[in-house]
């Protein structure tokens, strides 16, 4: 199991601030797919979001250990 924290537009789309995703291990790309399957409402934003594990931004190829503190940060705009 991995606890995935959702923020801003992601949390609004999901209607909650976190998801528990069944997890047997894999990469961030695998987790991205698992989150989309667990909560289809966030799928459109998910492909443009970045993942952070234990307080660090990570690439899609990074491994995600079970029990990791995962945060999904959606795109922001400003200016």
């Amino acid at each position: 199991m991995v606890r995935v924290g959702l923020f801003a537009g992601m949390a609004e789309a999901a209607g909650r601030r976190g998801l528990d995703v069944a997890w047997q291990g894999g990469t961030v790309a695998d987790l991205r797919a698992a989150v989309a399957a667990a909560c289809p409402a966030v799928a459109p934003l998910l492909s443009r979001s970045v993942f952070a594990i234990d307080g660090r931004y990570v690439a899609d190829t990074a491994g995600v250990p079970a029990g990791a503190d995962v945060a999904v940060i959606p795109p922001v705009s400003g200016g």
Partner: protein
Amino acid sequence: MTTVHCRLVRDRIDTAAVLAEVGRETAGASVLFVGTTRSITGDVVTRSLDYEAHEPLAEDQLAHLARAAVQEFALSACAVVHRLGAVPWERRAWRWPRVPRIAARPSPRPSG
């Protein structure tokens, strides 16, 4: 010594306090950049921006950016303060620092 101050706040940013944090005897100027909620963007009206953050990650990234700026531009100090929560458009969304109206010329220190 170069210092970096970074923090997240939930109230109006006290810009005078931020400027005081970066003032140095070795610096000839302090530059202040203040972001505001832009109310009018073409035909779109924005009443408020709501800032939310993964706070430990945000603080870490702000510090990273500040350290990079210090290194790239040889700054003597850098402070980055970001507000969280609802930030409506306001004529004065921050506390404007008191700025001297007359530039002073340096007075030489007495020698010896």
